[in-house]
């Protein structure tokens, strides 16, 4: 075969394949996740508090969750519903917000 054909087959085709993969992997911004967290960098996002979907069934024990599904949240008793409206409990909590935490754990990294 002529030498130009040899160069094309053994030189140009591998080079084309090489360049194709090079472009695919080195395309700027690809695979670089901007939102990725790296330990040690400052965290300047505003605080976010996520909670489950409000229609989570069975948070108060599955049985009567369906009856309260219309309220969109967990079933609350009469007292809790009244408190939710804005009434205070009859025992005045003078010492500010009561402590609700009973346990847990903490860790650092």
């Amino acid at each position: 075969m002529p030498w130009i054909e040899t160069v094309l087959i053994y030189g140009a085709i591998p080079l084309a394949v090489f360049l194709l993969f090079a472009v695919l992997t080195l395309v700027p911004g690809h695979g670089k996740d901007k939102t990725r967290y790296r330990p040690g960098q400052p965290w300047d996002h505003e605080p976010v508090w996520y909670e489950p979907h409000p229609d989570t069934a069975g948070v108060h024990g599955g049985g009567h969750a369906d009856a309260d599904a219309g309220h969109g949240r967990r079933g609350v008793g009469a007292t809790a519903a009244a408190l939710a409206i804005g009434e205070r409990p009859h025992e005045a909590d003078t010492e500010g917000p009561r402590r609700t935490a009973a346990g847990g754990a903490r860790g650092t990294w």
Partner: protein
Amino acid sequence: MTQQLDSRGSSDTRDTQGSVVDETRSGPVSFRDLARIDEALTMSSRETGLWFTLYVGDLGADTRSTAEALHARSGEDTANSVLVALSPGQRVLEIVTGSAAARRLPDRACALAVLSMTGRLGSGDLAGAIINGLRQLSDAAGHPSHRRH
């Protein structure tokens, strides 16, 4: 997913109940991770009957007391609620359980979840840490019907 965007200020999950998050805003996690976190939160809450909430943000100087104050406002039924609070800037992770939740999630189980989460957080895997931590917590808590006697 509902979320509270205000910081430690005003406080009520009822304010944002049923609201839809504006997801056009670029947040700390990608949308795909956000969906996975959402599913993990919802599924673990549904399976265990506990109310799992997740706080990502600064926790102040006294991280534990801040996390406990957040837990006190984490819902209507704080006894059954579990707060996973992490502050990536301070590299602190706090898990706070309510009085009823603490019976099903003893401190040892929480510490185990914290341990696996901090391992992933140390390598920068924020969403993976959250998802696996929630999975571990819900596995430890079990299903409510199995605990009812």
